[in-house]
């Protein structure tokens, strides 16, 4: 393809995301309007806000998943390490190999073995791995996802045979096996029990050493625990576009929010 976006990760700067005046549409409906923000590399950024304010839409614009919905499109500019993501000439497949995603409901390939689930991204990129390199990659990714101990003896079992929390960690292992620059997580714990949730939060704290992590969450406690920066989105009412209201470091955001709408939202949550 005409793009250079598959470059090996060279510096931390390659993991910075710049979002400039992004609007997103579903057909004629504007779901998100005029979002500008810089997402810092190797840090955890949380998106919070009421249902329907466009958090998922923003997230899915970053790896160009948004455009896979019929009639959906994005305007504005998103760059990853200075390279345009939304440029029509850029292959979305290449973008997605640099920007991994974890979904709300765990979605491992159910009949594929645990091992193959971890390797699937690397194989999609057409990279040939020797048997021992593949073994190493599987172990490394599963360790990074805190899943190695429970599954090391059952790597050939299907991904669908794990518990929900384990499946979600398998999805994280699958996403990081390709060594992406960015990891997007859309409410990764909302289908999980508190213990699995704690395990994943701990994992996110480790992931931020290597990856730029963007997480959508409805759990204010979680946002406070895991994130370095928080972005609050809101929407005025049905049919209105979602907007970014306030974006700052998490501690300040939760202790001294500047915008009254943020203060109301946070207060309402804890009130």
């Amino acid at each position, binding site marked *: 393809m005409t793009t250079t976006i598959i470059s090996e990760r060279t510096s931390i700067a390659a993991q910075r995301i710049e979002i400039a005046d992004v609007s997103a549409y579903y057909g004629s409906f504007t779901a998100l309007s005029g979002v500008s923000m810089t997402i810092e590399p190797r840090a955890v950024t949380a998106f919070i806000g009421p249902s329907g304010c466009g958090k998922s839409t923003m997230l899915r614009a970053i790896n160009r998943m948004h455009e896979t919905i019929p009639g959906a499109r994005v305007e504005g500019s998103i760059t990853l390490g200075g390279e345009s993501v939304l440029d029509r000439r850029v292959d979305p497949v290449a973008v997605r190999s640099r920007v991994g995603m974890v979904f709300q409901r765990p*979605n491992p390939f159910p009949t594929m073995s645990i091992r193959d689930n971890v390797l699937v*991204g690397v194989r999609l990129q057409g990279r040939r791995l020797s048997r021992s390199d593949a073994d190493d990659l599987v172990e490394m990714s599963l360790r990074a996802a805190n899943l190695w101990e429970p599954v090391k003896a059952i790597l050939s079992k299907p991904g669908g045979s794990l518990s929900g929390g384990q*499946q979600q960690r398998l999805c994280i292992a699958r996403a990081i096996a*390709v060594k992406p620059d960015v990891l997007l997580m859309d409410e990764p714990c909302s289908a999980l029990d508190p213990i699995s949730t704690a395990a994943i939060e701990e994992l996110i704290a480790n992931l931020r050493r290597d990856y730029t992590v963007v997480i959508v969450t409805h759990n204010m406690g979680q946002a406070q625990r895991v994130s370095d920066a928080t972005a609050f989105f809101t929407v005025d009412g049905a049919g209105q576009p979602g907007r970014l209201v306030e974006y700052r470091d998490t501690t300040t955001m939760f202790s001294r929010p500047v915008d009254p709408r943020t203060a109301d939202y946070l207060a309402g949550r804890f009130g």
Partner: protein
Amino acid sequence: MTIAFSDMTASPTRTLGSSGRRVSRFFETGSRGVAVAAGGVVILALGGVTVFLTVQGWPAWTAASGLPQNASSLWALAGPLAFGSVWASAIALVLTAPISVGVALFLSEYAPRRVARVLGSVVDVLAAVPSVVFGLWGLMVLAPMLAGPYAWLSAKMGWFPLFSGQSSATGRTILTAAIVLSIMMTPIMASVCREAFTQTPQALREAAIALGSTPWEVIRLAVLPYGRSAMISGCMLALGRALGETMAVAMVLSATPGLVSLQVLTSSNPNTTAAFIAQNFPEAHGMQVSALIALGLVLFAITFVVNAVARRVARPRKEA
């Protein structure tokens, strides 16, 4: 659910709730009764057919004379016919399976929605065309059309065992019969597969897309594994139709009694069980009737085995 809810609300709706419960009881027991009855009817019918085929065909199994085609035993008659049935159906399945999956993928993944809807109903109509029509078309249009290509195939690729031998001048070979069969099987299998493919969970598709899959890789990772058991049951439905098909085969195929041969282009071809029964029944009497019924039992057994095998293969691997 609604019953439990109305039970908990101590309010005037109580009476309404309890009458609703009575009505729903009625449907509960009623529907269970219907289900049990339907299941019973199916099993009885199946058992009845088996008993009929066994009892009525019994004398033929030990008979040494009076059999159709002056066969020396029923086995000598049934063997080549069973072979013909399986062989013709197998060729037809080899042609049908990839085409059906391709058509189904095109309709579910690639075609614009409107095109898919029109083509989908065309496929469904094709599935409903009576087999005599396919038989006529196969005999009068397809067979003459294929005679030329068959001659070419046997000249150029005669070294390949299936294409060896003198090619038929009329084109009425087992390959033509299999092609006609596969045209009849394709709509069935394609619509079963399409149904399953379109139901692939969005979450699985997105898992594949988010990992950087091309559309074909989405199919490979999400759609085909999800549709696996549907593809297998589609094959079985199609095979069932092919094994039992009489008219189309009887009309198209120029068969040689008692022949077992893998050559698909020659003018001498094995007959199929179903076509043989249909062709001979009108003239049959006495032991011959028994023999034809015994052949029916053989066909029944073949179908049964095919289905049992398919069930084993199709059984989904353990999932959470």
